[in-house]
């Protein structure tokens, strides 16, 4: 078919304009804002005051921001290991001829179709609750009084209860990605390996894992993006105003850009700097992941 350049331009123009207005403009404006101070996020540029890298320097000196960064890193690392381990485990089990595969797959994926708000409430009120939560009841029934009295929502354990609840809900999503990755691997390799006498474990480590490199790359990128944007769960664990156990960089950004219940000063410039730093974190991880999982020339 003959290409008609005018028509191509006509049809791509609306999407291009939307992209430029909705994405590129805010990105550029945010990047610029991070070098200025202003009273409100929508103040006109003429009122901005240039401060150079001061917003970034101040952020690195702000202890609550560093706490938020530490929380995010711990969610990424510890939660990441747990989520990826279980997602892979379930995916491997489900692709090894387990009965009622669709049922199990649906059950494990289920938390992803429930709103995070409802799901967080379920964890807070029905599982972690100190008086009538599920964990309390199980330990009480077993006669383990000390464990039954443990307060999973107190100031020292809030981070861990949050991490467990969030990670639990994430497993199904990543399991599906692993599942699709494993299912497209050619069965010939496994047949040949079986004939050669390799057991399931050897097949997993020598065939499945190496061939899933590309999937790991996708999963690490998706996990990073979801952890960097960690917001709703933190708000659910600490409603109205944040706590150091549950604060993450984007929650901190929201607080300083829009203010909270008190009459605290709003700092949109500093908030923009948080946004830029988070974008850099994603880029850095993406770059590292690409280096770590170089595409092989494998074709299957």
């Amino acid at each position, binding site marked *: 078919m003959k290409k008609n350049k005018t028509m191509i331009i006509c049809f791509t123009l609306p999407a291009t304009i939307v992209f430029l207005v909705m994405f590129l403009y805010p990105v550029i404006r945010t990047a610029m804002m991070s070098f200025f101070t202003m009273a409100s996020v929508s103040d006109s540029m003429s009122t901005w005051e240039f401060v150079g890298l001061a917003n970034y320097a101040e952020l690195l000196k702000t202890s609550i921001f560093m706490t938020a960064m530490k929380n995010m890193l711990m969610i990424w690392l510890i939660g990441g290991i747990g989520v990826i381990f279980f997602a892979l485990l379930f995916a491997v089990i489900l692709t090894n001829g387990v009965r009622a595969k669709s049922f199990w797959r649906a059950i494990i994926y289920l938390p992803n179709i429930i709103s995070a708000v409802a799901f967080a409430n379920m964890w807070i009120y029905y599982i972690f609750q100190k008086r009538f939560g599920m964990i309390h009841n199980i330990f009480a029934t077993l006669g383990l009084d000390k464990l039954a009295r443990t307060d999973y929502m107190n100031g020292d354990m809030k981070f861990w209860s949050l991490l467990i609840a969030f990670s639990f809900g994430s497993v199904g999503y990543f399991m599906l990605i692993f599942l699709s990755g494993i299912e497209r691997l050619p069965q010939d390799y496994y047949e040949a390996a079986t004939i050669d006498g390799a057991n399931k474990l050897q097949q997993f480590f020598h065939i499945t894992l190496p061939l899933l490199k590309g999937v790991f790359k996708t999963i690490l990128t998706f996990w990073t993006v979801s952890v960097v944007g960690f917001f709703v769960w933190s708000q659910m664990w600490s409603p109205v105003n944040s706590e150091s156990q549950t604060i993450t960089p984007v929650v901190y950004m929201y607080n300083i850009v*829009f203010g909270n219940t*008190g009459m*605290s000063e709003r700092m949109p410039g500093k908030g923009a700097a948080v946004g830029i730093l988070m974008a850099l974190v994603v880029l850095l991880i993406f770059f590292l992941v690409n280096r770590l999982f170089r595409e092989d020339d494998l074709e299957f």
Partner: protein
Amino acid sequence: MGLKKKLLSAALCAAMVGTMAIPAATVSAADDTLVYWSMWESTEPQGQAIQEAVDAYVAETGVKVDLQFKGRTGNREALQPALDGGTQIDIFDEDIDRVNGMYGKYLLDLEDLAKEANYEETAIPAMMSACREAGDGTLKTIPYQPNVFAFFYNKDLFEQAGIESEPTTWAEFLDVCQKLKDAGITPMTMDDAYATSVIGYHLGRLVGEEKVVEIVTEGKWDDPAVLQMAQDIENLATSGYYSEMVGSNVWPAGQNTELALGTAAMYLNGSWLPNEVKDMAGPDFKWGCFAYPALENGANGVETNNFGAQVFGINKDTKLAKEAFDLITYITKGEYDKKLSEMSVGIPADTTNAEWPEMVACAKPLIDNSTTRFTWAVGVETNVDMTPIIKENFIKLMAGTMTADEFVEAMKSAA
């Protein structure tokens, strides 16, 4: 490609681009339409009452009103950018300090309009002066849904413990707590979301709000008042006056599962509380309330309280100032103020609506006797970088998992 097809494709492209321009074209309403961005949701009792008032106003006056329910978060995130972007918004509302503080530069001075309408004749003086105070000495906002932050309690439980009068001093308060405890009742509970109000009130009673702001913004945590406050709270914790759930209550667990269900007697909160928990508390729940007790050698007493209101503001660029003020008057006076108060179990703004809903009637003497105003959480949330740390450590102090000295140390090292 045939000419017909080309023309059709071009028309489709034009249609696509055209639809993109529609939102921009509808930003401004017609000149004769009042645009009101409401802080409520259309499903809330306040939203429903306001909708009724607006409908009646439109029917009576013929003025067109475009009422948009944005919700708290919607207004908080989008109002200012919309105002900066020149969107037509004639009336908006939110908390008294937020509207006067953050949106102050967009507000029309309402002194003349209020005088002309003789508005203040039937308005609560304390609320009007609070608005003037928040508006740097001039009236820029009109209060409605007044509220006061105080101890709300279960009268039946007080009666059961043989308590005859509400405490006004700290010693009396401790006595009330002990009596409740002796009667086998948990004296009080709290939720995490309001923990900062407890520390704010206690510090504020000791040294006043100005000093509280100084402590949190300048890191003056070595002030003796901080230790004094922490010791008082530690004393409440070690005496067993707080619920064992206080360390892990995530709002609204404490107010819903403890206070409303009658397992705890007192809860420090705003006068919106009875409305929030009415379905759980049931119709027989008898509400009482008293001001945060005065402390020995404190800077202020029970006459100083965190009271305020939601307020209406009018955009200074509006072309319909008179109509906007009339609509506000319509909502905040007479029949519709009464309706709003009844539907939301709130305090009426119009003094001729002398009968308050029974559930909040206990707050009347409190508001009548309040002469000086604290702002939200008595200023303890002024430093956004410290609020999460204050909240977390103070909850530990209330839960008894941290001592007063440890609290002060934690604050000093975080500042």
